[in-house]
């Protein structure tokens, strides 16, 4: 202490001496007055302003996603527009925008609207409004959306019986119900009666269709799988004993028996399917569309029918949550642009958990060695720099590495050893949730190592010494004192890793994410977790739906809702981790008294 204050004292006195001489003092003063840096306030504004800018950008991003994602499923009114040139446009308003009438735009308008617009422009109103109407009925009109200029509207209505049908294919349908038929026999006529009959019958048909899909997907899937298994068993017998052996012949006989048994089962299921199909296709609904056309929609095609214009607020709320439920827990339809995202949700969560399970132990062990055992020196600092640099490597590079190393080398090796009978079809030698997790673990490893190292370094030396003085060995000290005390810091690294890993998309495209995965990586068939399977991921889903979809305007709401969900999942996982960290901190690190 004495020593450290001494130089300060001398420095002070030196300064005092200097300021005694008049010249420098004067110059200094003048300089200080004119310097913006010498006065604190501008710096406060600069730093504060930067912070406000950052926070503002983040908040507006989140607000946009919240608004767009949150309002997607809200059932709007279905409007019917009669335009000045006699056509009728029906549908929900998706968004509106203002338009500035330039000669090019005016020349593109239909003649009657053009007249009106030109009159407006002559009056000096150079801007107008237009609205994007989701008209649906793609199978009839070849378009999902239509821009409609406010100047071209002659009449705007909310017809009571204009209903919305969400279909299994071809997207939405808007029309007024006319008749409900069972095998060409009319059982209800007129909008009200037809709608009532539809609602009475729809649930049954819907369940029938679900059953149909279930039989197709699960029952047949099960049969084929067990058959495939037997075939693979035979193949492995062949590989082991040769094709001439008695074992092989016996296996062949067994397989034949199984195939026969399967055949009868298959026939039974086919019969059931045919029956279901016939029953499901019995009912059809005829509707009148905007163009005055009549269209017939089989009830089996309809997921949900909504008479939007008759709904009160609670009805709308109910429908809103019903749609969220469907979105969260259903399979996607229509090239992912409709339906739910359940597989992507499951895939993301499982991948993130597997990644964490891989990266955290590895990262901690590596950091422990670096900090506790390695002798500080050139090699260790080189390794440390390398690890830090690894954090800056573009993620796609990790994807390429993961594909080359995990899938093609490790995965193929595993296939050679354990899944030979399945070759040349790869089991592990292709992208899968395991390899994706491993790749992301590699990607996030530097984050965990750096955070853990810092946490370990922050453990007070006095605690270690206390432990050693009690006769604890190095490992006992690490295990009982250092690790518990460093745990909150390690959790910070874990949180950062998770946030980075869960949001990563680019490398995943190479190592196992697919547009549509037929099976979840987790299911009720032993061994329950299937790490070799490809999976769907929310991040990739956003990319796929938003930019690879045929109908990008219709997919846009899906993009926002999926983004909202992805952000919520990451935020949720982080919140849990932060809560755990807080608990650990309270337990292991108290503020000094």
């Amino acid at each position: 202490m004495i020593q450290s204050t001494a130089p300060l004292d001398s420095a002070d006195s030196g300064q005092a001496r200097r300021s005694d001489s008049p010249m420098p003092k004067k110059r200094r003063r003048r300089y200080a007055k004119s310097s913006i840096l010498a006065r604190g306030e501008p710096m406060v504004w600069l730093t504060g302003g930067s912070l406000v800018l950052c926070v503002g950008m983040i908040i507006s991003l989140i607000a946009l996603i919240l608004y767009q994602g949150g309002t997607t499923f809200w059932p709007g009114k279905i409007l019917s527009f009669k335009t000045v040139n006699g056509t009728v446009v029906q549908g929900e308003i998706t968004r509106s925008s203002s338009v500035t009438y330039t000669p090019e735009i005016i020349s593109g308008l239909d003649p009657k609207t053009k007249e009106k617009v030109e009159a407006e422009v002559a009056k000096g109103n150079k801007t107008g409004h237009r609205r994007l109407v989701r008209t649906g009925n793609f199978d009839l009109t070849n378009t999902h959306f239509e821009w409609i200029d406010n100047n071209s509207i002659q009449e705007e209505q909310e017809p009571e019986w204009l209903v919305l049908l969400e279909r299994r294919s071809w997207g939405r349908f808007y029309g007024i119900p006319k008749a409900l038929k069972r095998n060409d026999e009319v059982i209800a006529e007129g909008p009200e009666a037809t709608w009532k009959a539809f609602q009475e019958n729809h649930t049954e048909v819907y369940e029938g269709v679900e059953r149909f899909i279930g039989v197709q997907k699960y029952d047949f899937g099960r049969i084929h799988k067990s058959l495939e298994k037997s075939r693979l068993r035979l193949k492995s017998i062949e590989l082991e004993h040769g094709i001439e052996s008695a074992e092989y012949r016996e296996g062949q006989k067994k397989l034949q028996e199984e195939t026969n048994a399967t055949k009868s089962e298959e026939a039974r299921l086919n019969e059931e399917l045919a029956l279901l199909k016939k029953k499901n296709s019995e009912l059809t609904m005829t509707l009148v569309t905007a163009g005055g056309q009549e269209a017939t929609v089989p009830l089996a095609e309809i997921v949900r029918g909504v008479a939007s214009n008759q709904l009160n607020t609670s009805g709308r709320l109910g429908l809103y949550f019903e749609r969220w439920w469907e979105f969260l827990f259903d399979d996607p339809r229509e090239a992912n642009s409709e339906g739910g995202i359940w597989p992507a949700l499951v895939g993301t969560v499982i991948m993130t958990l597997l990644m964490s399970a891989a990266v955290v132990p590895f990262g901690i062990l590596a950091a422990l060695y670096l900090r506790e055992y390695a002798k500080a020196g050139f090699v260790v600092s080189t390794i440390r720099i390398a690890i830090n640099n690894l954090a800056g490597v573009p993620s796609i590079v990790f994807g390429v590495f993961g594909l080359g190393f995990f899938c093609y080398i490790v995965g193929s090796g595993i296939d050679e050893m354990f899944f030979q009978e399945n070759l040349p079809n790869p089991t592990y030698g292709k992208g899968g949730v395991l390899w994706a997790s491993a790749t992301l673990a590699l990607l996030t490893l530097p984050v965990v190592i750096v955070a853990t190292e810092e946490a370990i370094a922050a453990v007070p030396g006095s605690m270690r010494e206390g432990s050693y003085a009690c006769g604890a060995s190095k490992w006992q000290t690490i295990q009982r004192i250092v690790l518990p005390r460093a745990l909150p810091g390690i959790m910070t690294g874990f949180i950062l890793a998770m946030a980075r890993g869960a949001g990563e998309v680019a490398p995943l495209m190479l190592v196992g994410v697919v547009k549509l995965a037929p099976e979840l990586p987790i299911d009720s068939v032993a061994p329950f977790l299937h790490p070799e399977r490809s999976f769907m991921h929310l991040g990739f889903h956003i990319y796929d739906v938003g930019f690879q979809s045929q109908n990008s305007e219709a997919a846009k709401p899906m993009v926002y809702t999926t983004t909202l969900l992805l952000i919520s999942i990451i935020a949720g996982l982080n919140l849990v981790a932060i809560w755990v960290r807080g608990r650990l901190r309270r337990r292991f690190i108290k503020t000094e008294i």
Partner: protein
Amino acid sequence: MKTQVPRSELPDEEARGRLEGIVNDQSQPGSETQSPEPVVRQNVQQQEAGRLEAIQRGETFEPEIHDCVRQEEHVLNVDGFSFWYGDKQALFDINMPIPKGKITAIIGPSGCGKSTLLRSINRLNGLLADTRHQGDILLNGDSVYGKSVDVIQLRKRMGMVFQKSNPFPMSIFENVVYPLRVDGERDKKVLNEVCIQSLKGSALYDEVQDRIQDSALGLSGGQQQRLCIARAIAGEPEVLLMDEPCSALDPVATIKIEDLMQDLKGEYSIVIVTHNMQQASRVSDYCAFMYLGRLVEYGPTGDLFTNPILPETADYVSGRFG
């Protein structure tokens, strides 16, 4: 921590040292059987300049060790021990027997190597990089620095209390039984008994008995330090090392710890390093004065404080220097 004696004070010091040296020499002729008479005689000039000055210049003196120290039964025996941090030598050929069942205080100005000596006893300094040593320390006759010594087992025979209380981030119970835990003791009954015994031994039991499973980090500073003492005595050590145990505590807590040391004395041999001369005189039976890595004088506390052999010691204990 390199700390030097403030240079501005040295001239006065020098003069006083010279003066009192003469007075002492006359008043106690031949009373110091172990005094390095020949060395002093050969360096009359230096002796006049003061022994501490000479030590600063790097000269070697035999320490003044009072006879009665040697007559005690010894728990520790520092035997020609030197220690280096890198190139810097911190201890110079220390020879120092430490009596059993007594409190031995080591005093001296900052940087005199008293903490280094204490931490060398349980080889905590060996954990630092780039240190080396010479000589040996004997714990009840067993070598501390011998080649085949298991340092983990060795540390289990000593307890240590640090300057800043360092309770572990676990419950009070786990803190106290930590030495047994790392020793592999799992018997709940034994652990419980030791915990209660140690807490009683460190006079903490009454204050914490109803929250023994609570976190130790919730205790006050003084309680934490007594908890550390409980932890240090839980392993029934042969010697208890205390490195300025009260320097971070308020006077009330300090008195509690000092009383506690008096209670522990006899059952345990205590070596305490302290900055506080009053504390040394209050609690210790024997006292050693160190300066710049050398033992200067070592004897019964009463003698050292009231009737030291060396004038420099008298200066230091009376606060005229250091």
